[in-house]
């Protein structure tokens, strides 16, 4: 975890990140059963269809045998037998299709369903949980883990119907030629055992190969992203050496994987051949002795061949099942994490405002809060803000400014004390009401892969174009939006049109205007902005703040000056209150905090770049 920086988001997690070893495999299987049970209809249908497929398949060698024995050798009607075989082919063909269809439908559906469930749950999980998790980690729950589940579920109808086929064949063979059957079938269980050993041995190596590939990817990514450093210092050799190392690692591990494959795969091909040889040798002599027919011989041959893949698959399915149950446990870990911030059982409502009774009064009473078990970062914080007035929170790094904002929106709950809006404790408001009442312009603007319009109308998706445009105008964003390739319809976000820091910030302010909050928080809204554009943002900020209770977190004098009064924070409590001028004149601590840039106000400012 990063150091505790007030502005950053890299807090030590308060979330209970359960990191117990996932050894309890019975839990995994139980979860798997529950998940599968919800789709039992489709899965049963898939298996049923598969049984028909098996029947079609199994009948072919039997019919072939009869065709050879009765049609060819016995001179019965050839067309009858050959027609029957073709008929069996029709059945096998149709049910192959259907089996595949149901198997994939059910497996894709379970994946799709659970992914939505995870997503919904994530959106409702308290921010503390997200602080403690890496995005990639959560992503893999909803992507690769679910894929592992999918890969197993698709095998369920297929494996079960394969099993039906295996049983049918074994019964058929044993009942027709018990001795030959036992000898010819004996290598086949070894196929399953070997195949499961194979997937047990190869799996970790395959993972290792992937890991080595990921490490190589990191070297490449860094070399490309850090190309300025590398070129600047002529450090190409350093990176080339790193790459050589990684390429060698991949090579080594891949050859280990190849060795494992070479140990198992040819053997898996060899074993059934032994069965076929037994059929020819033992079966041949039995035919010579008149104990069986040539047709039987062909039938045995065909059946043994038919058993090879199902028996190999069986082992694969078991391995897939194990991986799926582990993956499902990880998925469940997310789904079972309760949100620590929830709606109250009985929700109060905020009073409505009137001419005589303006709303937006905000009060912090003896608030104490610390992240996890760490020492409180907010320690007995008291502050009252009158409706419609603006307060600037100023303090050194780690003084707790941003944490105050996080408490106000209930990203975290206070440990002691209370926060009240218009006299109502925020914990007795519904989360929706609270967050409608409080609007934040974050330090870093997050834009969604949506149009400019949708990004501004984020809080009110059904807002009219007039409302959105008005907000954009107030935020000083309207003009540059019109200059974008598609105006308000321009798609933004990581994969869309990229805006400058100042433009992003103005979109964020427009977003806050549309939400029309009772209390507005501007969390260091100018820090990511090209300094030369800062005054434009300030103007937009001043417009939004008018007549609205506002908390401004700022470093720079120009931004602080927007507020009616300044609150100086130190060690998580208020140490001084006053106007910017008063504090600058009288308060040494305030002077010190501002000293970093205050050295000369010149220093803080830049010419246009």
């Amino acid at each position, binding site marked *: 975890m990063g150091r505790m920086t007030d502005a950053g*988001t890299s807090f030590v997690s308060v979330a209970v990140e359960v990191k117990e070893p996932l050894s309890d495999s019975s839990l995994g299987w139980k979860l798997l059963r529950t998940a599968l049970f919800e789709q039992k209809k489709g899965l049963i249908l898939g298996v049923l269809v598969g049984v028909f497929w098996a029947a079609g398949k199994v009948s*072919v060698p039997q019919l*072939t045998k009869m*065709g*050879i024995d009765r049609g060819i050798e016995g001179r019965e009607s050839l067309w009858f*037998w050959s*027609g029957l*075989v073709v008929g069996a*082919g029709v059945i096998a063909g149709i049910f192959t299709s259907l089996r*595949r269809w149901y198997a*994939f439908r059910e497996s*894709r559906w379970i994946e*799709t369903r659970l*992914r939505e469930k995870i*997503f919904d749950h994530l*959106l409702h999980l308290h921010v503390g949980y997200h602080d403690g998790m890496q*995005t990639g980690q959560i992503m893999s729950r*909803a992507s690769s883990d679910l894929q592992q589940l999918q890969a197993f579920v698709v095998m369920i109808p297929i494996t079960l119907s394969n099993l039906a086929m295996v049983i049918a064949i074994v019964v058929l063979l044993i009942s027709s030629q018990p001795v030959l059957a036992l000898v010819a079938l004996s290598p086949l269980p070894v196929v399953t055992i070997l195949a499961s050993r194979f997937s047990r041995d190869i799996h970790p190596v395959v993972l290792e190969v992937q890991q080595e*590939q990921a490490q*190589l990817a*990191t070297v490449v990514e860094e070399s490309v*992203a*850090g190309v*300025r*450093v590398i*070129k*600047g*210092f*002529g450090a190409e050799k*350093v990176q080339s050496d790193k*790459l*050589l190392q990684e*390429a060698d690692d*991949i090579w080594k591990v*891949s*050859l280990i*994987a*190849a060795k494992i*494959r070479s140990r198992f795969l*040819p053997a898996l*091909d*060899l074993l059934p*051949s032994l069965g076929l*040889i037994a059929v*020819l040798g033992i079966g*041949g002599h039995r035919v*010579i002795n008149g104990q069986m027919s040539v047709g039987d011989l062909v039938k045995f041959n*065909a059946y043994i061949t038919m058993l090879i893949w199902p028996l190999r698959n069986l082992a694969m399915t078991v391995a897939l099942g194990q991986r799926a149950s582990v993956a499902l446990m990880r998925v469940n870990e997310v789904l079972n994490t309760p949100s620590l911030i929830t709606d109250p059982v009985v929700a109060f409502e905020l009073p409505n405002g009137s001419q005589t009774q303006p709303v937006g009064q905000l009060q912090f009473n003896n608030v104490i809060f610390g992240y996890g078990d760490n020492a409180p970062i907010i320690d007995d914080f008291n502050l009252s803000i009158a409706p419609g007035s603006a307060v600037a929170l100023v303090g050194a790094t780690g003084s707790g400014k941003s944490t105050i904002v996080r408490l106000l929106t209930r990203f975290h709950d206070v440990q002691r004390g209370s926060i009240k809006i218009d006299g109502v404790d925020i914990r007795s408001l519904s989360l929706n009401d609270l967050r409608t009442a409080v609007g934040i312009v*974050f330090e870093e603007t997050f834009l969604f892969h949506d149009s400019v319009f949708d990004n501004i109308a984020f809080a009110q998706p059904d807002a009219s174009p007039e409302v959105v445009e008005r907000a954009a105008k107030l935020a000083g964003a309207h003009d540059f939006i019109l200059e974008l390739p598609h105006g308000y319809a321009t798609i933004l976000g990581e994969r869309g049109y990229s805006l400058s*820091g100042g433009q992003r910030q103005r979109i964020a302010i427009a977003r806050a205007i549309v939400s029309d909050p009772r209390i507005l928080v501007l969390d260091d809204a100018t820090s990511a902005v090209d*300094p*030369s554009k800062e005054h434009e943002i300030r103007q937009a900020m001043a417009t939004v703040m008018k007549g609205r209770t506002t908390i401004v977190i700022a470093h720079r*004098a*120009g931004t602080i000056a927007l507020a009616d009064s300044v609150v100086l924070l130190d060690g998580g409590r208020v140490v001084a209150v006053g106007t910017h001028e008063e504090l600058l004149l009288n308060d040494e601590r305030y002077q010190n905090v501002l*000293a*970093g840039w205050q050295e000369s106000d010149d*220093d803080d*400012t*830049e010419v*246009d770049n």
Partner: protein
Amino acid sequence: MWGMSAVSEADRLDRVQTLKVLRRAFVMARAQRRLFLSALGFVFVGTLVTLAGPTLVRYGIDHGIRTKNGSALNRTVALYVLVVIVGYISARMQFIAINRAGEGFLRELRITVFGKLQKQSMAFFDREKAGVLVSRMTADIESMSELVQFGLLQFVSAFLLLILATVLLAVLSWQLLIVAMVVLPVLIVASIKFQRISNNAYLDVRENVGNNLSTLQEGITGVRVIQAYGQQANRSKRFRLSNRALFDSHMYSVKISTWYFGLVEFAGIAATGAIIGFGGYLVHQGTATIGTVTAFVLLLANLFDPVQQLSQLYNTVQSSTAALHKLFVIIDAVPDVDEVAQPTELSTRGALVVDHVTFAYAGNDREVLKDVTISVADGERLALVGPTGAGKSTLAKLMARLYDPSESNGHRGTVSYGGVDLRQASNSDLRRRIVVVPQEGFCFSGSIRENIRIARSTASDSEVEEALVSIGALERFTEFPEGLETDVRERGSRLSAGERQLIALARAALVNPAVLVLDEATSNLDPGTEAVVEHALESLMIGRTVIVVAHRLSTIRRADRIGVIDHGELVELGTHAELVELKGRYAALSDAWDRSQPQR
């Protein structure tokens, strides 16, 4: 499972190109050629073994069983055992050979492509998207591993099997072969059609997977905004849309595959039925033996499976050659800033002179710099100012030979240091004299020490520490529990922005260059860190020639001279006082700054 590789229309190579790429790959795989050839030999043996089984069964039936010749049967069985063992051994050898060849080839490809990438100039990296370059080195090379591990051999063996099986069956009974072939055209047409549709379906799936992952990621990274504005329900709805679109595209590709696999299953069995019908007829006529019919039934699979495999492998081959082609493009790219064969030594100190330099990015006619001439004396501090996109940063980079001047009207300007054209200097000399400190402190994964040492890989531990001391930043890092060995984590996320900048400065200090080229950061640090970075920067600049792309007035005022760049031209040059006096651009910029100051 069907071949999960696809290639988009844009990437697809035609036959001539494909052959060219393959031929070149074969030339490149010089070192592995013997292994490849021996693997091919083993594949040939393996194919013969596959066909030998049913042939031996036929022989056993006709010559042992039907003639009631027990010893002939035994001999056949013994031969069968032998053949199977030979098959097993050759399969093992083939695995080892092809993997050693293939992995060796991929290893060399990785090293070659990366080496070429490293040789490219800054301009190349400005031009190319980072994600694309990374995927060349990862996804594109990995997409070939399937091909080298088994695809290539499978391709060869399917091809051999198809031909040999056809020949064998023709020898056994050409009449029956014709019967068996009846379903073959259907199968071939279906396979080709299926492969084409499924290729597109797979591309569609891939796109939907990408979209869905982005939406997912957006939800997770944007969760604070979503919660702050109470938009969970809306976002869930959005996600559902992309998630269901993905499901639908999956199901579409399944739908395509269902009819195909059903048809394949049917065709195989139907052919068996036909063989029994016609084969029986031929037996009754006395033109075929029952052993032949049996062999046909058993060999049929060897006729149909290769058709399926070949059509599936077709996509793998296509996407692999497309990937190879892209890699060759990188390998063939000529670096536009390259080292000369016989470099001239750079003096330790001297003036940095930009002489009539014009610059345009490759493939772009617009001149970013137009005929700029400027001379920076030894030890002088020059600030470059001007609007965004004016060309200040480009000029700074030219001064460090991250780019070379372009030719314009038959004349190519020069940048020289101590009288030596930078293009004549060796890279190592150049990087020792002139160092660029990028504005964002980029960190590589590894420890703090390793991150600093990247500037000079031969530096000792104490030299790294001295570099930190010289900029007054050692304590900042020794405070960490693990000191300089602290792992900075991905992109230096363990460190604050200010600390990352300190590392960038320490790197420069470690090299101890005569000339520093600085690109000043635009974003602000918190006041405390700002002071430390400021101090480090000042210490670093002492006694060096400094060219700084400046955004802050404080920096500008501390410079000896200021150069104003506008639209690629050096429009003003002089001291602060001189330029204010001039009442030109600089004076206007300075004024604008004064006005944007808050009232006190």
